[in-house]
């Protein structure tokens, strides 16, 4: 019984919190999907408790009735309000040629 409890506490200590995972991604590429039909791919520079996100070398993907629209941006500070999903190392939607 005590062994089980011990292993549980070890598990809890070694457990990685969601934001700690994102913290480990600082400096690498990340793919961000928003609540609306927008996605961003860029190099993660930092973020805060609201998951406002700093990115550099960013590509913005927007799904419109006319198709996928892409915009290139340098440095951006992305408002965390509409962030839905973060994918470490993600390369974004595959653009069909």
């Amino acid at each position, binding site marked *: 019984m005590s062994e089980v409890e011990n292993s549980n506490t070890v598990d809890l200590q070694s457990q990685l*919190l969601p*934001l*700690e995972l994102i*913290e480990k991604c600082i400096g690498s590429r990340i793919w961000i999907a928003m609540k*609306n039909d*927008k996605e961003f791919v860029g190099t993660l*520079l*930092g*973020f*805060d*408790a609201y998951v*406002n996100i*700093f990115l*550099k070398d*960013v590509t913005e993907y927007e799904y419109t009735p006319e198709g996928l629209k892409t915009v290139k*941006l*340098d*440095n*951006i*500070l*992305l*408002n965390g*309000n*509409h962030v839905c999903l973060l994918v470490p190392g993600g390369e974004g939607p595959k653009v069909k040629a």
Partner: protein
Amino acid sequence: MTTSNTSNNSNAQFNFFKMCIGRPVVVKLNNGVEYRGILEVVDGNMNIVMEQTEEYLNGQLKTKYGDCFLRGNNVLYISAQPRK
């Protein structure tokens, strides 16, 4: 640990604001409207004051404003060219 890192990141946010002030920026709102102008002031809520502001809708210039204030809740992102 986490709090210290968060404060570091807040510093990064502060540095980004400092880097951008007085420089041309692009601010995109949630409704898709884009504002290009000289960033004057920005705060933690992303409230923004800009000068020489141009309003773009679907990439087309619609209006110009001398001074303008944007309430932070509408802001999708603030984009700036890195200092050369």
